[in-house]
């Protein structure tokens, strides 16, 4: 019995060590604010700890992603504010609220901008974009993780990219306007 406990604990520790980075980035990319990522990651791993026996070896990342997706959705729903990049006025207002870019280190500013771009993607395409563009998964891997047909993954990725390019162009233009003031 003790061996079974130790085995489970060893496996759980290995899962945390291997996938915490992935879970944290995914939560951020799926709209969890940076201040809430630690809490959300803990929720994800709590579920993993409870369900460890049910997670097939080799399928840990898919399991964690599915949980992270649900946790992120809950967090987003509970957030009072909503961001819509499609509305340029809202985007401008957000940029106006942003601290002077010089006050932020470049990487933090870039990360915040990317968060806004991702917030503009729909829930349907956002995970696909995150898994491919940020986590580097192949379409076949995404199809497995999200339990989707390969063609569905491909079409959602195209839509996500189109939306991302459009939002990035608007964001860039908005940023240039601010810089030229």
């Amino acid at each position, binding site marked *: *019995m*003790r061996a*079974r*406990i*130790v*085995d*489970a*604990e060893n*496996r*759980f*520790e290995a899962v*945390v060590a291997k996938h*915490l*980075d992935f*879970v*944290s*980035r995914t939560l*951020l*990319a799926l709209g969890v604010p940076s201040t809430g*990522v*630690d*809490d959300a*990651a*803990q*929720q994800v*791993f*709590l579920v*993993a*700890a*409870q*369900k*460890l*026996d049910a997670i097939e070896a080799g399928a840990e990342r898919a399991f964690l992603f599915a949980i992270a997706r649900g946790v992120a959705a809950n967090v987003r729903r509970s957030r009072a504010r909503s961001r819509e990049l499609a509305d340029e006025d809202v985007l401008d207002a957000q940029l106006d609220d942003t601290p002077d870019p010089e006050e932020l280190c*470049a*990487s*933090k500013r*870039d*990360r915040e*901008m*990317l968060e806004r*771009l991702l917030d503009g993607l729909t829930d349907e395409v956002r995970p696909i974009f995150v898994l*491919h*563009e*940020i986590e*580097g998964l*192949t*379409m076949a891997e995404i199809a497995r993780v999200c339990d989707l047909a*390969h*063609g569905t993954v*491909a079409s959602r*990725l195209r839509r996500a*990219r189109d939306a*991302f*390019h459009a939002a*990035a*162009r608007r*964001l*860039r233009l908005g940023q240039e306007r601010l810089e030229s003031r």
Partner: protein
Amino acid sequence: MSEPRRLLLDPDAADFEHELLRAWGDEQPSRAARDRAMGLVAIAGAGAVGAHAVGALAPNAAATSVAAAVKWSTLGVILIGGATAGVSYVARDRHPDVGAETGTATPIRTQIAVPTANARATAEEIQSPPSPSPRSARTPRADMLAEQIAMMDGVRAAIASGGGAHAVRLVDDYERRFPRGAFLEEAEALRVDAIAKTANFAATRHAADRFLVAHPSSPHAARIRTLSSAATP
């Protein structure tokens, strides 16, 4: 269908997009996040025995206890957030038997009951780093959980063989050994069973009443009421 190239690696993608996507490559979870996730390891260990030995210990009831502990810890995670797992991680070092509670339920319950009063202590406890060697800290916890389960098995075996008095002594031993044990509720329920085996009706009713006052919504409550009724002349 060909695999699309990632934007980050696509020379045709805008530099601006490259910069944004590259910024996420530097994203790393905090040390606290890692500690907190690792702090859940006891729940994973409890889960490993939950479906087997714990379930066999007292069908439904013991498993319910573990599930309740996990529920409490879930609630603790949600309500308390940041400090909870760090505290529970540290708490196990401070109270060795707490780790055996499988869901670190007791410290979290305390936190929920009086969060403000504990806030300062929480902050102080978090200052203390967890054990640098989770492996060395883990094995005693696993041992303790296994020991608790074995002791409960012993109580049940004693009751099954008709040794009520012996079973009561074993329950006493358990409660002395694990004053914050994972199976205290089950132990108290088994105590009623054990006393009933001694045919001491008054003591059985007294123990049953005590149990029902302490655990009115326990999954054992119906059975304990039956034992109490059977001990009523």
